[in-house]
């Protein structure tokens, strides 16, 4: 298990090695492929639903007038597509209960 702190791909690969005995190269391949698959799917315009964890959804935003918050100068915000994450029930419950006993 990784120590407290930020979780990165390196720690995920280490967890897979330790749990299943994959060698380092295999573990890294699995971690990279996992995130790449989600990224490629979203980049093809398709949403990704990981039950328990959450859904990566896509939204098309209309253009709107914006402002530079520092100068107050009007700047147009272009139409764009964005990813939003909706946490699943299991993740929400685990996170909410943190620190409670």
């Amino acid at each position, binding site marked *: 298990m990784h120590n407290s702190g930020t979780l*990165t791909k390196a720690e995920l690969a280490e967890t897979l090695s330790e749990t299943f005995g994959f060698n380092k190269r295999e573990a890294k391949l699995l971690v990279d492929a*996992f995130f790449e*698959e989600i*990224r490629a799917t979203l980049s*093809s315009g398709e949403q990704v639903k990981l039950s328990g964890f959450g859904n990566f959804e896509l939204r*098309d935003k209309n253009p709107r007038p914006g402002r530079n918050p520092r100068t107050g100068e009007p700047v147009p915000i272009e139409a764009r597509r964005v*990813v939003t994450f909706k946490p699943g029930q299991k993740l929400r419950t*685990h996170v*909410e209960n943190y620190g409670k006993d």
Partner: protein
Amino acid sequence: MTKSELIESLSYKLDRFSQKDIEQAVNTMLDTMIHTLAQGNRIEIRGFGSFTLHERKARMGRNPKTGEQVPLPAKRVPHFKPGKALREKVNASREHTDIIR
């Protein structure tokens, strides 16, 4: 794309692993991510994005059925911020695809 479709697609691409290996690896990665956030830590996946926790203050809510006021305690909710590479690729997909839900 659902979790089982993602596992299927990965086992097709990574033919040196059995589908069971991939299923276990995916579930372990997701559980490790949930566990990390539940401990109050963050996740940083380069090129993909980061998961952090946002604090929600305690507030008065309403029971939608009875209209009765109910106090809602402070809580933490998971938040995903897409990385630059993911943001750019997703935005580029707007030009040539509709969103597949």
